[in-house]
């Protein structure tokens, strides 16, 4: 019913913009990853696999990538453990207060992400709020040093930041479950536990997969929390990219690392979509 002119008018402008400002830059990233830097710090446009060779040869790159994935995996697990029961509680038990509680989950997202990471730093530091509280209460004599500048601090902060992101799709999935299915399960004699494990949980799997993907991918690419709270043992792959684009001035190698991240993220999204499709009921 919409004319060709209408369709062209709504399609072309975004198509052109996206091609110039998203597709072209990603393609450029791809090209850069095969180029190199001369000793005079200029980009040499000769195509070779030297950067990828270096990624395989120098173990700091893949070790950091593995560490980032391990941090992201822990963040994902904790976000789901915090987010799922919360979403379940809101969707099935909160009654009329549901929307209010929902807002309370969302509000922390309106506080700058950088500022919340900084707040954790002021809590976890050696003369931070937590350590001085523990000493004030005579529970410890000396500040606990492992709290800040450790992978622990990064996992804690990222879990804080990404729990609402894990919560959102799970909540959306739970809200979409037809309530008469739950009632039917009860009418047929299932206990609350049985209903949860056999009806509600399976139907919410697509939300869990989406939430896990959010938490994993977003925390995998994070570079601020490790810089602020990670210390040397909490460095993540994005920090390497940042330093390659900054002080180390090796854009092509940085592009190669980024392209590996990009491919990892896109393949994760691909698998999570497969998984969601497999489990969706509609």
């Amino acid at each position, binding site marked *: 019913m919409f004319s060709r002119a209408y369709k062209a008018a709504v399609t072309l402008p975004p198509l052109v913009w996206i091609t110039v400002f998203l*597709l072209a830059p990603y393609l*450029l990233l791809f090209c850069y990853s095969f180029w190199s830097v001369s000793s005079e710090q200029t980009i040499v446009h000769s195509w070779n696999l030297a950067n990828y060779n270096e990624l395989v040869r120098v173990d700091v790159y893949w070790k950091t990538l593995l560490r980032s994935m391990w941090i992201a995996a822990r963040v994902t697990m904790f976000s789901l453990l915090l987010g799922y029961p919360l979403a379940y509680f809101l969707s099935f038990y909160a009654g009329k207060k549901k929307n209010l509680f929902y807002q*309370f989950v969302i*509000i922390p997202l309106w506080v700058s992400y950088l500022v919340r990471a900084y707040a954790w730093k002021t809590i976890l530091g050696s003369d931070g709020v937590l350590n001085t509280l523990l000493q004030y209460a005579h529970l410890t004599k000396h500040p606990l040093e492992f709290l800040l500048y450790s992978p622990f601090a990064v996992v804690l902060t990222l879990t804080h930041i990404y729990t609402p992101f894990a919560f959102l799709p799970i909540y959306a999935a739970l809200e979409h479950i037809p309530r008469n299915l739950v009632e039917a399960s*009860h009418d047929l004699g299932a206990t609350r536990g049985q209903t949860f494990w056999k009806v509600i949980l399976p139907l919410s799997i697509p939300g869990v997969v989406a939430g896990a993907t959010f938490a994993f991918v977003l925390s995998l690419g994070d570079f601020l929390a490790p810089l602020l709270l990670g210390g040397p043992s909490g460095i993540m792959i994005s920090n390497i990219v940042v330093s390659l*684009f900054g002080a180390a001035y090796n854009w092509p190698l940085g592009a190669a690392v*980024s392209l590996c991240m990009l491919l990892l993220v896109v393949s994760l999204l691909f698998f*999570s979509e497969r998984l969601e499709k497999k489990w969706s009921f509609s």
Partner: protein
Amino acid sequence: MELLVSEGKSVSGSRWLLLHAAVVFAFLYLPIAVLIIYSFNGDGVGGFPPHHLTFDWYRILFADGPIWDSVLNSLQVALAAMVISLAFGVPAALALERAQFPGKALFRRLVLLPLILPGIITGLSLLMLFNVAGTKLSLLTIILGHGTALISVATTEVFAGLQKVDRAQEEASLDLGANYWQTFWRITVPNLKLPIIGAALLIFTLSMDEIAVSFFLIGRDNTLPLEIWGRLRRGITPEINAVSTIIFVFSLVAILLWYRLRVRGEGGSEIGLEIAEVADPV
């Protein structure tokens, strides 16, 4: 769900869920509470219990020129990014819902990719583009970066809104002799008022808080998050807490306004939920 609570067993179950929810909310709000409390703490950001309550940090903040310059920069960037994202994101949603064209699947994925792709990849890809094009980095490059990355937000929100709109109104308008332009402004846009306002609010706040893309595209003028970031590296003062507290209060007011609007309107959906539902970019 009152039905479920009436069973004896589920009451204890719901108590555990309530306890869990309380713990999660405490975890989500602890850093925010610390942030606000210590903005009034005369002795600095650490140390329990807080004492020497004072407004000094706010006084210092109000006399701090660079911070307010960066706030103005961020406001400009956020407004301009909002315009760009809506100008291309709304047509993109219409195109995805109504038009068929070759490469549509790829287009959809590209538009939505920045929602979940680590910001640094989008940021450094654009840096390469501007570098190749010989564009000098400035607030303009940040605007282009934010505007492009946040098209994804406008598109998801509006696309979800379109699914609920009755197309017959637009058809009637066209049948009655209005042209597409008139129909767009008089029927399509008013029908999508709530999703568009919701998207605009989200884009504005996300841009105000954005740091990964800005990190690579920054010229001489700092945005607020980058100004804060620069200061955090030099040492921390409660001035950061004070400025964050003020922004938090403004955000709360914005949420409340949105809520009022939604209640008066025919009840659009919760901010962010659309993204959680439609965001799977692949």
